[in-house]
């Protein structure tokens, strides 16, 4: 009680005197940064779950090769769910003399339960969302079916014994999914027409789906039904929920969260540094108070409790404020991005508040408490001898606690412990290198002292004498300025280069199924009619059967992606030259005379996933024959170029004689879409795939990622600024005292001013040089390892950084010292 009361009094007093403001601001920044990302990713996660339901077209899907027993449907309806059934099967669709194997899907009213169907009135016409399904007697065909059967809207097609009129072009169905190249064209029809087709016979291969959905937001109904169903033990019915759908989407989101989380971790680390610096100054200013309290009989435990409670309350209040600001900030972020997302994001949950509050507490306790703990050791004799100070903290106490705090916070920021460890190590190494750099620069500065005049010598002497503090200042300011540089100049360099890789004329259409004899004609057509210089690449399907003679077994891979990859056929290709958007990472590209050896070039990512290395021997099953060859190189592929690319490419001699179809990609502006219809008419067997929508999505995702990263780094800059102020404040009192002493000894105002300017300018230059160096190193590393591109070092960094830091430090410093220069020294000395 006593300690609480004393802590509250002390808190009130310290708050009034502004001594706690910097600590509070730093914590508010850390928590705001954390919670804004927390709230935002929470909303995006919910939105993604909604998208996942769209990809299922329901909240839960039951799949079976047999009709799904009606009691199941009845049970679902009884439990308040809505249900609709679909069935799909492969069948030949006939139009006049043309026939095409298609994937027919019959649906009932209520399909899809989640998401929407989209249709167009004509091939490649504008699409629109529809709430309907094909009426009985009608069918909707996708572009590929229309192309391959030379159909037009209004034509009649036969499927089994039924005749249906095609009334719409089906452009999108939410639960289509799958591999673009592997699925048959689609015919969507009404369930009522199924008996008439006479295709549903015993032994027919049919997929029955029961699509279920609960009230929006009511996941309990779905969970309850799933439990009910799983307890019934239906062996032949598979169940698929949101979490089972699209694992790659989940992975992508998790990865985005990880990177944002790490950016937040950097902000927290910087905010922590600011907290530690402010707390050090705070502790210093409380030595006298603690000595008096100790003298009056306060026990060490009481001192600890008072300051602990004080910091605890400060942490709670600052963290709560941070949470509120975080919520507001994510709101503006979501508003900022509203134009990019088709639908409004769902509301955030309150979960980030918990992590925010905990972060506030851990940041203060981890970074400020070690400094403040010194106060318990203030000797009471200090009331008689002011020079007595408690022993400085050991390095382990200071940095160990801070690192522990960061390590405690890290798991919330990124589920990936390795990545977190790298980031933490990165922060520590950067700090150590900057500290070393600062130390060397300060030493070098010392050599200049004998060659300069009195005022400048005084300034340089100050930097050298307070070398430890100067180092901390350079470090703090340097980090802040480095982040600012990264955010402004470097960010622009990197992101522009990254964005430029996806040019406006990135291919928006793919052509597949081009027969070898059509290659030259198609190329000629595109060149003559559309002035398109298209590259056509051969595509051969093959299954990977052995690596270095060891049979490939999907079950032996721990990684989902690896299992999926080896379970299906690869699209292989062969080429003489490496594509322009590829880069050799290891090994050599083949020369023209290496036709007698079987050689493969493997994309490095898939190589890593499947454990394929340079020099390995790969065995493929292609068209019933086995081919074995050596991996002669590993390639990096710029997938976001949207050009046709292959995981595995062989040299010309290896696959040239195998049956291949050709594939191409090109860009056609909206105004020239009629060229596509003409292309279909001339080459009916070719299939055109529209990737415009995917491309738009990729572009908007890029924009979103850029904005999100920018947003998070704003907090890093803010932390940097707080470090700057904290660093200035640390030496402020000492500097005022010295200036007053100099003035007493007869130094003119001009001489003192010149000395101060010399000190600030030197500090600024050192800081700027170090920040420019660090920013350049980070830029090169990012370009090399993250963005995989060559970057031209921006010389502006080296001019702007020293200039900006000198200006900032000198302006801040002189502003703080203004009162001293204009006040009689006696007044200053008495005040100090």
């Amino acid at each position, binding site marked *: 009680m*006593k300690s609480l*009361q*004393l802590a509250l*009094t*002390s808190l009130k*007093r*310290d708050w*009034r*005197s502004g001594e706690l403001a910097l600590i509070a601001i730093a914590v508010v920044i850390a928590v705001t940064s954390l919670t804004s990302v927390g709230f935002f990713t929470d909303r995006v996660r919910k939105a993604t779950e909604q998208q996942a339901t769209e990809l299922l077209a329901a909240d839960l899907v039951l799949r079976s090769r047999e009709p799904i027993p009606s009691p199941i449907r009845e049970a679902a309806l009884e439990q308040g769910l809505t249900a609709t059934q679909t069935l799909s099967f492969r069948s030949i669709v006939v139009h006049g003399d043309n026939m095409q194997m298609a994937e027919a899907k019959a649906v009932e009213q209520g399909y899809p339960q989640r998401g929407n169907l989209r249709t167009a009135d004509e091939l490649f016409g504008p699409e629109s969302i529809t709430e309907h399904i094909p009426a009985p007697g009608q069918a909707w065909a996708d572009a590929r079916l229309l192309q391959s059967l030379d159909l037009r809207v209004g034509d009649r097609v036969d499927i089994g014994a039924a005749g249906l009129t095609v009334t719409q072009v089906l452009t999108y169905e939410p639960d289509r999914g799958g591999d673009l190249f592997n699925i048959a064209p689609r015919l969507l029809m009404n369930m009522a027409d199924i008996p008439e087709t006479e295709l549903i016979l015993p032994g027919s291969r049919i997929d029955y789906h029961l699509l279920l959905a609960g009230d929006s937001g009511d996941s309990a109904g779905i969970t309850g039904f799933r439990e009910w169903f799983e307890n019934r033990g239906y062996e032949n019915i598979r169940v698929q929920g949101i979490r089972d759908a699209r694992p790659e989407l989940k992975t992508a989101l998790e990865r985005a969260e990880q990177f944002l989380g790490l950016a937040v971790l950097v902000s927290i680390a910087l905010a922590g540094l600011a907290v530690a610096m402010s707390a050090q100054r705070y502790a210093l200013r409380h030595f*006298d*108070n603690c000595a*008096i*309290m*100790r*003298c*009056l*009989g*306060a*026990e*060490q*435990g*009481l001192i600890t409790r008072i300051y602990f409670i004080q910091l605890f309350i400060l942490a709670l209040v600052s963290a709560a404020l941070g949470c509120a600001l975080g919520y507001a900030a994510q709101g503006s972020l979501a508003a900022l991005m509203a134009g990019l997302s088709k639908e409004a994001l769902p509301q955030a949950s309150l979960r980030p508040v918990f992590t925010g509050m905990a972060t506030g507490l851990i940041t203060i306790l981890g970074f400020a408490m070690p400094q403040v703990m010194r106060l318990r050791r203030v*000797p*009471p*004799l200090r*009331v*008689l*001898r002011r020079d007595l100070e408690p022993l400085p903290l050991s390095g382990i106490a200071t940095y160990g606690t801070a690192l522990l705090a960061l390590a405690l916070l890290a798991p919330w920021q990124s589920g990936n412990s390795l990545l977190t460890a790298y980031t933490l190590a990165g922060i520590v190494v950067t700090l150590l290198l900057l500290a070393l750099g600062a130390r060397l620069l300060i030493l070098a500065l010392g050599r200049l002292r004998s060659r300069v005049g009195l005022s400048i010598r005084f300034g340089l002497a100050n930097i050298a004498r307070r070398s430890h503090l100067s180092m901390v200042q350079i470090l703090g300011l340097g980090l802040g300025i480095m982040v600012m540089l990264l955010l402004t100049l470097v960010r622009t360099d990197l992101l522009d280069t990254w964005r430029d890789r996806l040019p406006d004329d990135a291919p928006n259409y793919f052509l597949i199924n081009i027969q070898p004899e059509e290659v030259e004609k198609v190329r000629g057509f595109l060149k003559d009619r559309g002035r398109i210089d298209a590259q056509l690449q051969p595509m051969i399907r093959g299954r990977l059967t052995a690596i270095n003679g060891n049979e490939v077994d999907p079950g032996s891979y721990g990684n989902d992606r690896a299992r999926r990859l080896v379970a299906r056929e690869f699209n292989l290709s062969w080429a003489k030259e490496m594509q322009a958007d590829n880069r050799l990472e290891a090994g050599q590209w083949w020369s023209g005379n290496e036709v007698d050896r079987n050689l493969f070039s493997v994309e490095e990512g898939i190589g890593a996933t499947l454990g394929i290395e340079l020099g390995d021997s790969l065995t493929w099953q292609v068209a019933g024959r086995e081919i074995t060859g050596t991996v002669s190189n590993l390639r990096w592929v710029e997938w976001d170029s949207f050009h046709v690319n292959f995981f595995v490419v062989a040299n010309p001699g290896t696959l040239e004689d195998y049956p291949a179809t050709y594939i191409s990609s090109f860009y056609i502006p909206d105004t020239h879409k009629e060229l596509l219809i003409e292309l279909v008419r001339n080459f009916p067997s070719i299939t055109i795939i529209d990737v415009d929508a995917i491309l738009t999505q990729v572009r908007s995702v890029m924009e979103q990622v850029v904005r999100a990263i920018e947003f998070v780094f704003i907090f890093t800059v803010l932390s940097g600024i707080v470090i700057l102020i904290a660093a200035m404040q640390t030496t402020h009192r000492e500097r005022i005292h010295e200036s007053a002493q100099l003035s007493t000894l007869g130094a003119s105002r001009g001489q003192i001013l010149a000395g101060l300017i010399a000190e600030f300018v030197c500090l600024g230059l050192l800081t700027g040089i170090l920040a420019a160096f660090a920013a350049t190193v980070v830029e090169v590393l990012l370009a090399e390892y993250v963005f995989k591109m060559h970057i031209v070092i921006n010389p502006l960094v080296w001019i702007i950084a020293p200039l900006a830091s000198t200006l900032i430090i000198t302006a801040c410093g002189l502003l703080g010292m203004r009162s001293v220069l204009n006040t009689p020294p006696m007044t200053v000395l008495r005040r100090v």
Partner: protein
Amino acid sequence: MQAEQLGKQVTGPGGELTILHNINLELREGESMAVVGVSGSGKSTLLGLMAGLDVASSGRVLLDGNDLGSLDEDGRARLRNHRVGFVFQSFQLLPGLNALENVMLPLELAGSDDPQAQARERLAEVGLAERMYHYPSQLSGGEQQRVAIARAFAGEPRILFADEPTGNLDQKTAGQIIDLLFRLNHERGTTLVLVTHDPAIAGHCDRTVTLAGGEIVS
């Protein structure tokens, strides 16, 4: 209070330095003693050792029968809180607390009942009833020292240590402060140890001990 063969050595740049050597003193309850000597003679060090603010290198201090050297830091703090009062040359008020809060502090630390009422009483005794909500920076030197005296007597200490209590005050104010200090001391029967270099002030005490070079010379 008893000091037996008290010594204090510190290690400085030039090796071991003896600040106090073989100090033997005894002070009975209610007695007042002045410690005088030139700067650097060891007056403040002796005060620090006797008040339990510092630990002796040799010998021992007994305060109310408690050997200060055998207590730990917190034990000495408790003893100070319950038995000892202080008045310093530089007042040593907490700048963030007003006069009333400063006087309340030792009472709150001791867990007294109604510390505010007691503190008000003490401030009234030193003539500051009208200024109890003023902060130290809003008070004159003399007034600050009155607050310090009120604080020193607040916990009803058995012994009071005063280190140059008038060192920062003009002559007239110094006189008033000394009068106040001795009046309260007399009224309460507190034992007093007063460090000063002013023989006139020392003259108010029952006896005077003179230090030179860390030893008692008279």
